[in-house]
């Protein structure tokens, strides 16, 4: 290294060392709590032993894939896999378009103050925890004392076991998901709509376009890039599983549909101490998520959209 270059980098370090000092704690956090656990992933391929470090444990049978084979012959895991896919698919099918429609409707709302009020109110459920929402649902849907069933009874219908019957539980789960996040998710779409060139609307008004035509030909195309990005991210999560929502909403009567992968990992790993099996399941899930994310992104790029990176 030449002397001038060295003195230059000395000056640079003298001035900017503080930036590295600032980064020290955050980087330590990422390395300790995000990267070191990755070393423990090898437990999925080994026979867990409490007295040994993961590096010393013995390899599992079947070239290390023993626990993956075990998982796929485990009835509970196969149920969890099915439930995860089913609930996420329904979320995507029904829950994904809902905020797009609500954003378009909010955008068309002519009364400005009422619009602002509506927005404030529909954002509210996003701030409630799943425990609270589950508590509310338990009370609202209670068979004899809940508001919804009281109204149903008054109209001459039978009470519906919204949370205690597997079929109704799935519907309630999806509905509550929309209730919680639909309003919040309009924020992004409303921002995208606000970014659409107003001249387009003015020009179409001159041409006498109806409201629906404007939505179809201007608003929706304007939203397309945003929709694609969010769709990619959702597809990447098709095998991902939240923990709070299914855990808070489930109960013993519906576990055949409510046990998703994250709950399987919790039950078998942290409570059942089958660390190798549950690590294998978690790894399978993470890898599939990454694959889906890349696949969805590649697909979007192929169809001429921008993708997420």
């Amino acid at each position, binding site marked *: 290294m030449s002397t001038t270059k060295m003195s230059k980098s000395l000056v640079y370090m003298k001035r900017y060392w503080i930036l590295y000092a600032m980064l020290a704690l955050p980087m330590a956090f990422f390395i300790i709590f995000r990267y070191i656990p990755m070393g423990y992933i090898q437990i999925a391929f080994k026979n867990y032993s409490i007295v040994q470090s993961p590096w010393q444990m013995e390899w599992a049978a079947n070239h290390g894939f023993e626990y993956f084979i075990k998982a796929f012959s485990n009835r509970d895991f196969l149920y969890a896999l099915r439930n995860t896919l089913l609930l996420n698919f329904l979320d995507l099918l029904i829950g994904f378009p809902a905020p797009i429609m609500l954003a378009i409707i909010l955008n068309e709302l002519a009364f400005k103050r009422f619009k602002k009020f509506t927005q404030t109110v*529909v954002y509210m459920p996003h701030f409630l925890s799943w425990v609270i929402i589950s508590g509310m649902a338990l009370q609202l849907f209670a068979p004899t004392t809940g508001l919804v069933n009281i109204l149903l009874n008054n109209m001459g219908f039978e009470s519906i076991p919204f949370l205690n019957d597997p079929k109704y539980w799935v519907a309630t789960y999806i509905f509550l998901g929309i209730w919680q996040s639909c309003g919040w998710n309009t924020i992004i779409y409303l921002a995208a709509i606000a970014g659409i060139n107003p001249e387009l609307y003015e020009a179409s008004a001159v041409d006498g376009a109806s409201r629906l035509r404007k939505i179809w030909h201007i608003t929706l195309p304007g939203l397309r890039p945003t929709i694609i990005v969010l769709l990619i991210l959702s597809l990447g999560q098709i095998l991902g599983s939240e923990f709070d929502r299914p855990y808070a909403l489930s109960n013993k009567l519906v576990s055949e549909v409510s046990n998703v992968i994250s709950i399987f990992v919790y039950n078998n790993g942290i409570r059942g101490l089958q660390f190798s099996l549950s690590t294998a399941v978690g790894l399978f899930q993470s890898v599939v998520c990454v694959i889906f994310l890349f696949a969805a992104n590649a697909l979007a790029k192929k169809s001429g959209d921008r993708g997420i990176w």
Partner: protein
Amino acid sequence: MIKSRSHKIGDWVIAAFCLLCVLACLLPVLNILARSLSSADALVKGEVLLWPVGLNFDAYMTVLGDSKYTWSLLWTAILTVIVTLWSMFMTVMCAYPLIYDNLKGKKIILAIILFTMYFSAGTIPTYLLLKELHLLNNPLVLIIPNSISVFYVIIMRSFLFGIPESLRESAELDGAGPLRVLVSVYLPLSMPVLATLALFYAVGRWNGFSDALMFMSDRTYFPIQLLLYNILNSITSVEVATQEGFSSPGLSETIKSATVMFATVPILLVYPWLQRYFISGVTIGAVKG
């Protein structure tokens, strides 16, 4: 612009639909409020809809008189303040250096951070690490393992990028170092994003329970949501009374409603005031994320 007749009818149809959405969000909360204020008797008979029947505050008195519940509320409030301050500190420390173009190694650092967004080791490896670090059953486990959200670092960084570089350069000409520039130029201009992220971190901690469920067994440090989960899912009032320490069983259903109200109201009081900020925060995240 003159509106056509059908357009005007459309306006009212849309307004009616929005009103339905508003009611769908508000009525459940109103129903719980009414239940918490009603007599246990009226509740069991199914008389309570949106207005309290047999108005009384017994449920609230019982909840407030329960030392376990009030301690959990207080502990969660303390925890939320600590987590918010700590996470905001860490997020700023992480995001600010990364706006310097000439920072050596910036690309590698960014890659290390962003990779964790797409791939995580999973629950069990994290659990085993925490066990090794003796953080299981330690109150710190509710603070440290989720110190930083990468997504919020991205939002923070995008916002800081939006502040004109000329401001930084002129401060540097006056001899200010990076730390000085952060404190006297960037932070004062970043209030919207700071408020947004603080709200997100605070809500996340106030509402979170899975970490406590997985990593804590000492009931003393259960955050309010986990305690609430146990209360709401106990079938009989006797169970509530014995497990969670409620001394007087019998009011159980109204008590459940009252406990829900206590955990909900703090957030409902805060978020509407920060609406302007969090909308811009979410929007920045969407554009860059």
